[in-house]
């Protein structure tokens, strides 16, 4: 479904954010990417929907060669990939349902999007997405009025309403407290299991990574240094990925 072949990304000449990545991700997989900040996690995930263009190699996503797409081709690809952000990236002053309906943007004519005149069918899709994250009753609240965990669930619903083939989540729980973090991860896992949507999540908490990741990919200095089952991941392997011994900050729960 997603294939990286010798993919590199340079933000500035000579500064490689991603260095010769080779990966194969199958349909329906739940993949967790771990690594220190600056290891290239965010870059990797953003190459998949071309928010960061690749500078070298070949990246196939759902039958498209990402590097060769036209602008409208990029928009079409993005419409089939949901994205969840660390800072939620909601339109704060808009209502919850309006935020979720943003996921329908690509399928609707521009005038409907501009005036917020959505057809019933699309409203149903948004409502189902909201229901899936247990927020339907908050549909008309303003996004600013929600708690952090609720806001991230709106983010998930927005991605779901795209009816995506892939969901990318960039540090979705980094700004949340432990119980809320688990709730959000469980939602993502359940969506992956129920709907078979390929899910790729960046995490820096190791216990969350092993708890939810069927497959774990470790990045260090823009290179893949580990790729294996989540259950096989031992603290020694993580120390290899991080290039240092583990500390309390590397886990969500205080005790390892």
């Amino acid at each position, binding site marked *: 479904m997603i294939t990286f072949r010798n993919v590199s990304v340079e933000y500035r000449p000579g500064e490689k954010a991603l260095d010769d990545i080779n990966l194969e991700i199958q349909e329906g997989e739940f993949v967790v990417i771990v690594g220190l900040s600056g290891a290239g996690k965010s870059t990797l995930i953003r190459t998949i929907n071309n928010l960061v263009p690749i500078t070298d190699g070949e990246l196939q996503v759902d039958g498209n060669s990402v590097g060769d797409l036209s602008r409208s081709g990029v928009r079409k690809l993005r419409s089939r990939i949901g994205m969840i952000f660390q800072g939620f990236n909601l339109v704060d002053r808009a209502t919850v349902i309006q935020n979720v309906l943003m996921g329908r943007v690509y399928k609707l004519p521009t005038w409907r999007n501009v005036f917020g005149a959505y057809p019933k069918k699309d409203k149903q899709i948004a*409502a*189902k997405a909201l*229901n899936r994250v247990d927020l339907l009753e908050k*549909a*008309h609240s303003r996004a600013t009025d929600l708690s952090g965990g609720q806001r991230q669930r709106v983010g998930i619903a927005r991605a779901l309403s795209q009816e995506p083939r892939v969901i990318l989540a960039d540090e979705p729980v980094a700004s949340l407290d432990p119980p809320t973090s688990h709730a959000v991860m469980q939602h993502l896992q359940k969506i992956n299991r129920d709907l078979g949507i390929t899910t790729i999540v960046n995490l820096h908490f190791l216990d969350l990574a092993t708890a939810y990741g069927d497959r774990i990919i470790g990045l260090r200095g823009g290179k893949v240094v580990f790729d294996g089952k989540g259950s096989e991941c031992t603290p020694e392997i993580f120390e290899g990925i991080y290039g240092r011994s583990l500390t309390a900050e590397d886990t969500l729960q205080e005790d390892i």
Partner: protein
Amino acid sequence: MQASELKIPKKPGLRGSVMFSISFAFVLTIVTMITVEFSLLEIIENFTRPNMVVDGLLSPDLTQIFSERSRSAFLETLQLAILGTVSGGGLSLLMAFWATDFGNPIGWLRVVVRNFNNVIRSIPDLLWALLFVTAVGVGILPGLLALFFFSMAVVTKLTSDTLDGIDQGPIEAARASGSGQLSMLRMAVLPQILPSYASFLLYGFELNLRASAVLGLVGAGGIGSRIEFFRGRLEWSEVWGLVLMFFLVVFLVERLSVTIRRRLV
């Protein structure tokens, strides 16, 4: 899963206050447009019709600066702005002190000074000029008086705000060492506000320079009188020439003033 339709909670209607505000703004707009006899047609017609004002703007008479009388009017404006700022701005330091509790121990006097400051601030520059033209007759003096009060109002306000935020520690220290009121202000307060105060003076000078252009329109001297003179004779090329020269002067003075202000603060 597909079969069951989900019910989205009912969208709450717009809040009453929001509805009220929107309709109020709408009605206000309609009524005010009627009051001012707004007519888009008239605006377009008047602007597209050839007229001497626009013609004058397109061919401004830049030789005005070489005319003896225009040049002396420029100098007059500059001198008015300098004297107005130095006198008004100078007094404003006193006014600002008198409006604070450490600068003025007498409670009722403080209230009087504060209210006086508020009143003079609410009167615009052109009205000052008109008032003094009425009181002392046409000439330079009403212009100077207008700029005096105008800059005093502005600088007092800015200086008072600065005084409100100064460090009270040195005042206490000066009092503890037994210094009198005046030396306390000199040693503990003045050094704290001097840079900002100097920068406010320059700012007041910029404002005064701009204001002095319009004072002449009501007979209070300076370059504005000269503009008014040509306007009365419908010589718009000369009017625009003067306005452009004036902007050049203001621009240069502002550059200079901003540079100095940066060094001060």
